[in-house]
């Protein structure tokens, strides 16, 4: 129980998980997870399917509630307190495997929704912000279209812009390229890489080893709901310590 009182912002980790357990019925999805993500750090979470990677990051913005342990985001602890949950969701952005854009709204409205509704920004300001974000993900010309008119890669980039519109302190990616055709993966990874370079704190669940190797500050390997190993990408790709990690890396590479 260390980080209870707010210290100066820069030293405090952005996200901490301490002894987190999570059950789905009687199935234990997370076992005693301990992880601390520092500011501007890019953490890549690897692991076989069903290992609890997605559940882990979904607990951080409370799309799932954890059953034991402590989770804090930028010093705010997650509990059943609705206010705290909304505050945390404001500080975190999330990008989903299936994009989950709102199909009944234009690209522009998808992005301005949160600024206008949550931050009460006037329409023209919100649209200016949205256009800047669309420039950043390199598709400003698609602003007035509906998500259904875009390719998968474009949709995922819009989803990233939508998350950035709340000006989050930490971005979480849940297999952002797994639903994409191969030729579109790069355009999304490029945007993510640019985001990492700009100093955004990121937690990425992904199978893109190239991305992990180049961009990650640390790699977390999970299996059966546990964190098996945490280390630098260098360490992971050359000389993993644990047997389970070795086996997984052999299968993937």
């Amino acid at each position, binding site marked *: 129980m260390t980080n209870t009182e707010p210290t100066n912002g820069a030293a405090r980790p952005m996200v901490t998980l301490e002894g987190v357990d999570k059950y789905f019925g009687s199935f234990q999805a997370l076992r005693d997870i301990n992880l601390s993500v520092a500011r501007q750090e890019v953490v890549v979470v690897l692991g076989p399917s069903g290992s609890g990677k997605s559940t882990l990051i979904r607990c951080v913005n409370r799309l799932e509630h954890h059953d034991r342990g402590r989770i804090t985001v930028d010093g705010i602890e997650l509990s059943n307190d609705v206010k705290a949950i909304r505050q945390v969701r404001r500080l975190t*952005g999330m990008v989903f495997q299936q994009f989950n854009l709102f199909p009944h709204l234009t690209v522009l409205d998808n992005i301005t929704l949160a600024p206008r509704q949550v931050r009460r920004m006037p329409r023209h300001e919100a649209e200016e912000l949205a256009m800047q974000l669309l420039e950043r993900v390199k598709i400003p010309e698609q602003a007035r279209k509906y998500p259904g008119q875009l390719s998968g890669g474009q949709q995922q980039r819009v989803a990233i812009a939508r998350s950035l519109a709340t000006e989050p302190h930490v971005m979480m990616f849940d297999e952002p390229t797994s639903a994409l055709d191969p030729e579109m993966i790069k355009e999304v990874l490029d945007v993510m890489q640019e985001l990492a370079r700009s100093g955004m704190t990121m937690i990425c669940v992904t199978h893109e080893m190239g991305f992990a190797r180049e961009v990650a500050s640390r790699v977390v390997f999970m299996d059966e709901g546990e964190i098996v190993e945490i280390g630098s990408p260098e360490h992971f790709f050359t000389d993993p310590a644990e047997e389970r990690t070795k086996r997984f890396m052999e299968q993937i590479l």
Partner: protein
Amino acid sequence: MTTAGPSPDRPATGAGRAAPPRPTAAAWARENLFNNRHNSVLTVLLGAGLVVLVIYGARFLFVTGQWEPVRTNLTLLMMGTFPREEQWRIVVQVYLLCASVGLLWGGLTASSRDRARDAGVPFSRARLRDGVRRWWPVFVLLAVLLGMTRTWLPLAFVASALALGVAARRVMEALPEAGRRAAWFGAGVCALAGWQVLSGTGGIAWWWGSALVAAAVVRLTRNVRTDARWQPLARLTLVAGAVAVVWAVYAQLDFGGVGWDDWSGFQLNLVAAAASIVLAFPVGLLAAVGRRSQLPAVRWLSVGYIEVIRGVPLITLLFMGDLFLGFFLPTEDPLSKVTRAIAVMTLFTGAYLAEIVRGGLQAVPRGQVEAAQAIGLSAPRVLSLIVLPQALRAVIPALVGQFINLFKDSTLLSIIALTEILRIRESIHGQREFLIVGIAETLVFVAFAFWALAFTMSRESQRLERRLGVGER
């Protein structure tokens, strides 16, 4: 809906081969009607049947049919026992309603035009011709009604009301965006004023007027932004004050008017159906959302309401409403018969709508809710901005089907002795000269009046469905 001609941006495929030419009528018939012996026999038989049917139908409509009972009692069928010296109220109301609808129509056209312009998509404005083609059953009904009248006045009235609606649409389309916003309120005011002139200042008009003023105040103060904590309170006070003014003014006013207790004929069918549709929609929405609520009390209440109502026949409910709904209400003067009937129809339809909407809610993927939560939307906003728009869009055909049912079920009001159109038709054959004259003809007329409107509703819902691209995005 233009036929797709050869477009320059879609080059012909297949080495410049042209599309196959449209087959001639004879070729088409050979291909589809007489392509083998069985089909030929079927075609001849069914064709003969069709011809006989058309001949008999035409003979009934134009030769043997005794339309005198309908012709003589046209006014009675349409507005029943509505006091004749107050008919001008209906005229004024229709004019105001046309203006209101015209403004709404123009507003919708203009905003979809602007959206299309922003998106860089070509936009073709629906013209009056398209309107006539889409609404042809209604126009046929109007033509039949006008054809049966003996004076020119009704024709002049209908034509001028239509012209007013079209003009209002034009004006709305020509307005800049800021002006249009004000004109939306104008549409509401027109509709309210029409209602007041017709039925007097009382009952619904109070609530309607209050809602309109409250909406106006909220809208006008929306862009006033301070960080002061009293701001919501100040706004609330403003709204309450404005509503209080409306009520104070209404208390002083007395336009006279004919309340809906004194309405009858087709007018009663229309009003009862329209009122129930408008009221049942929020009821159904609440019950559907309530049924999925996390709170057990809310959930049980919704389930109880839905399942009790759906298990009881409408006729039974109407009788119950007629006989003892008044006992449960703590008012001195019991609600009028018409009001109680509308309340029952609202509750009845609400339960069915709830189940339809629930189906729509279930069709919205879980990821939509998660994405909305993840960007920090509060639960009510997730529901109103993300889930409901998608859910309702998915169930438009079923919703409209339910509305059509309700409209037709308004004839059941006759069994609790309300003089809607079917009851009026019965009373016509109590008149000495029509005791056994034109019994089929009056029924056919009533059937046609319902069909014309119900069919148009159905067509419009299909069109709406196409336009919103259900099943595409």
